[in-house]
């Protein structure tokens, strides 16, 4: 790294920022051409101008204080991004710990910001929702600048702040790759745009299908307050019901017509849905209803054990009936993959090709359609509203004539049904064995917590995020083997961060 630049960054930048912070509010005319400038604005301008441009920055804001209001935030962030990119790009020795910022300075500033900023918000009685998350993200991405800005302005932190700061953090990581892992397909021009798009598409496609399963889990939790540990096995039996239905229906039609007929797996989805809906309803009535009627003493433990037991029962019964050999149904569509051919913008700049496996694309549309149908049902139908009402306040719902017992049964049956539909949508894509649900259910828990327990849109977004993180993690990790091995672990990093910074999840509501 260039020594003088480093010196500026470590010594002169903070020095001038301190000078700006102290002097600019004192020397600047408070009113110029009708523009009233608050002291905190001047302090922020002093920090940003001083840090980035030294005396020149302080001078600019002194002579043109109107710029402060309009451009402080944008200029501050832009300059900070520029500086940090310069830091990264100037690290000329690839053997240097590339994560100098990422590993040391980023987390350090994130920690400092997470400690101080929420306290500042509470001290000035500002709304501190999201302050912790924003401070951590901002500290990680921009370091002391964002701390200064948030300290002085304590701005109301909306979703746009989170997105902007989160994107900045991601950008930092990406820049590190660009500098230190130049052959990585995620950064190696000119193919990297195509590759990133390909991996993102892979993630969105599979993530949408993950979402469908997670939505069922979140529906059950929101109404009953129960985490179903049988969800993975319900997903598994959904696939098997579809498989056997298609097999028997195909044989029946073939015998009837004399021709060799195979039934499209799309028909297996409603069949699996109906069977598992009934299964879920019966299970709920027999085993979970007593819990809500006060007949069970240790409700939480009971709910875990009984759903866990149900899952074991389903898995081993299926193993006994279907055997351990993997099964798979035919295709949804006879198109092996959709390919967007390469588009050449110039000799050096092109985009594509992008490949999406046909059946996955189809399953994605099925998954999204079902989630939107569920949202429509929850928002527009009386029963859906009753479910939502029960999830918000059971007693109040009962007062208005809603039968919470029926809503419990309906929620468990519907949640189970969604898991089964997810299984029936995926059996043409993956080999199906009785223990196939184990991996998926772990992922579902991550998704629902990430999106916010009880939030259907949260599960949808959470599923897509998990899909994208898995795809990009596996696709961009500098070591392909580690990338492949840790594929399921990458979302857990996001999961841990969300638990740490925003325990209610992205779309979750506070428990009252």
């Amino acid at each position, binding site marked *: 790294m260039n020594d003088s630049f480093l010196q500026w960054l470590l010594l002169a930048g903070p020095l001038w920022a301190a000078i700006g912070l102290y002097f600019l509010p004192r020397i600047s005319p408070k009113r110029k051409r009708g523009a009233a400038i608050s002291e905190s604005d001047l302090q922020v301008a002093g920090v940003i101008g001083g840090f980035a441009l030294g005396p020149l920055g302080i001078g600019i804001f002194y002579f043109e204080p109107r710029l402060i209001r309009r451009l402080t935030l944008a200029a501050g962030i832009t300059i900070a991004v520029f500086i940090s990119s310069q830091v990264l790009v100037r690290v000329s020795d690839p053997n240097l710990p590339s994560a100098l910022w990422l590993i040391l300075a980023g987390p350090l500033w994130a920690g400092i910001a997470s400690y101080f900023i929420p306290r500042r918000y509470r001290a000035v009685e500002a709304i501190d929702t999201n302050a912790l998350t924003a401070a951590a993200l901002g500290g990680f991405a921009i370091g002391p600048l964002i701390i200064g800005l948030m300290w002085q302005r304590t701005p109301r932190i909306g979703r746009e702040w989170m997105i902007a700061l989160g994107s900045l953090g991601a950008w930092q990581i990406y820049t590190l790759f660009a500098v230190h892992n130049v052959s990585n397909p995620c950064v190696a021009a000119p193919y990297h745009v195509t590759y990133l798009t390909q991996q993102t598409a892979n993630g969105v496609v599979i993530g949408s299908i993950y979402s469908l399963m997670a939505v069922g889990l979140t529906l059950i939790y929101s109404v009953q307050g129960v985490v179903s540990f049988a969800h993975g096995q319900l997903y598994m039996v959904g696939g098997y019901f579809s498989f056997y239905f298609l097999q028997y229906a195909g044989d029946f039609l073939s015998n009837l017509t004399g021709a060799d007929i195979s039934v499209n797996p799309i028909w297996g989805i409603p069949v699996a849905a109906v069977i598992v809906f009934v299964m879920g309803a019966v299970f709920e009535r027999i085993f979970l209803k007593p819990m809500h009627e006060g007949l069970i003493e240790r409700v939480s433990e009971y709910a875990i054990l009984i759903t866990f037991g149900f899952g074991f029962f389903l898995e081993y019964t299926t193993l006994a009936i279907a055997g351990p*050999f993997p099964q798979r149904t*035919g295709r949804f569509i006879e198109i092996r993959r959709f390919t967007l051919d390469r588009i050449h913008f110039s000799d050096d700049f092109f985009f594509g090709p992008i490949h999406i496996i046909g059946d996955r694309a189809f399953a994605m549309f099925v998954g999204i359609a079902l989630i939107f149908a569920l949202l429509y049902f929850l928002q527009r139908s009386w029963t859906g509203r009753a479910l939502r009402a029960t999830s918000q306040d059971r007693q109040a719902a009962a007062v208005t004539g809603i039968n919470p017992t029926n809503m419990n049964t309906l929620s468990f049956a519907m949640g189970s049904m969604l898991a089964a539909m997810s299984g029936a949508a995926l059996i043409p894509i993956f080999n199906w*064995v009785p223990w196939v649900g184990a991996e998926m259910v772990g992922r579902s828990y991550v998704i629902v917590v990430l999106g916010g327990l009880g939030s259907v849109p949260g599960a949808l977004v959470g599923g897509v995020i998990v899909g994208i993180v898995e795809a990009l*993690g596996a*696709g961009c990790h500098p070591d*392909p083997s580690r990338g492949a091995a840790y594929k399921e672990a990458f979302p857990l990093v996001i999961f841990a961060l969300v638990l740490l910074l925003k325990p209610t999840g992205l779309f979750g509501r506070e428990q009252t």
Partner: protein
Amino acid sequence: MKRITIVISIAALLALTAMLPLGIVQADGHCEFADDSIKIGGLVPLSAPGAVAGGIAMSWAINRAADDINADCGIEIDGANYAIEVVIGDSEGSPERGQAVVERFILEDEVDAVTGVYHSAVGLATMGMLDENSVPTVFSEPWNDNVSANGIMEYDGRPPRNADGVDHVFRVSPASSMVGGVVVDWLNDLGVDNVVIIAENTDYGQPAAADEKARFEAAGATVTQINVELGTEDFVPILSRIQAAADTPDVVRVLVTGETSFNLTQQMAELGIAPTEDTICVTNQVAFQSEQYWLNVPDGNYCAFNRVGIIPSLFSDLAVELNASYFEEFEDIVPSYAMATYDAVWIIAKGMEQAGSKSDGAAIVAAIEATDLDLSQGRYYFEYGNHNPDLPEGTPAFMWHQWPDPVVTMMQYFEQGQSSLDAAVIFPQVYQTHGTGYIVPGTSP
């Protein structure tokens, strides 16, 4: 009085019912068995994450061999006929679980010998325990070189198994290096330069990949190795990475076992990575189970795979009979590991007969070392052991207590839905069935 009569009648009926099986045995049997039996422990994976389908096939083979031996009056030792009693233990494919099962075999079940083992990790973890407790063992499927090499080589900081004079562990499946040598020789003959190896992160996949990588690199090829976890379902992000590489690989070699290899191969085909005109697909030997393969890898036509065991056209009468019996049970072709497991039980049984003991480990080992038997996979013998302890220079250590002649061939499907009995044998040349070393996708031999 009437009540007493009814009670006595019911009791008599129950007693007769309970004795019925014994009566049947006595009526149908033509052998006088000794009071106690010979217990053979079968250590196989019957639960995830192990290869359950493989475990079930091996379990079937052990029981089938025991039935056949018992039908032949069991094992004759000092004039007494001992029936074989099979004790199956589920390793779950996990070394820890495998050790727990072996401990149970030794302490509770008191088995006289052990066979089975699908996963190398389980073999490596249990071989020391079996040896220390003097249990004659014939492993039938773990491929890791060290499973047999540890008979004379230090492993994991511990002395070789024969350090106390007797090594109790044998192997009738091939060592990874024996298989890898055939695969690499074939691909080198085809002139591949750019190789991608996708290997499972296990005691089978990693050494096998290292061995093949070294052989490819020695031949001047460039090798990219990607390790994956067994049980992974979605390989698309990883495969997209291969697809994004600047140079299209000449071959993608799958060193992943069981159901996981089906998912990987199918997704590879769906994405158009391999098999293509430019890229050879070499998938796992489970592809030989053609019913399973076509159900789960419908786009896998033209994939090649290594086949361990005698080629179907050269099946002996015993192999044909075994295959028919397996097909009746599972509606698929008998896999090599089931044949090897079946043969392993026979090797143990004949070893005990030869040794004249069911409990003298050293004598049984000596008898097994002297084995010369024709069974379903061919003629069994062990070239190196205490009877011939000096391996000539250049002979790999894994040849210790290793059946030296497992037939390894390369096969290739060339028609959608083809039975593996009709698939082309493409390497070695001496076994070629269609006069070609490789069938280019889209063509017929």
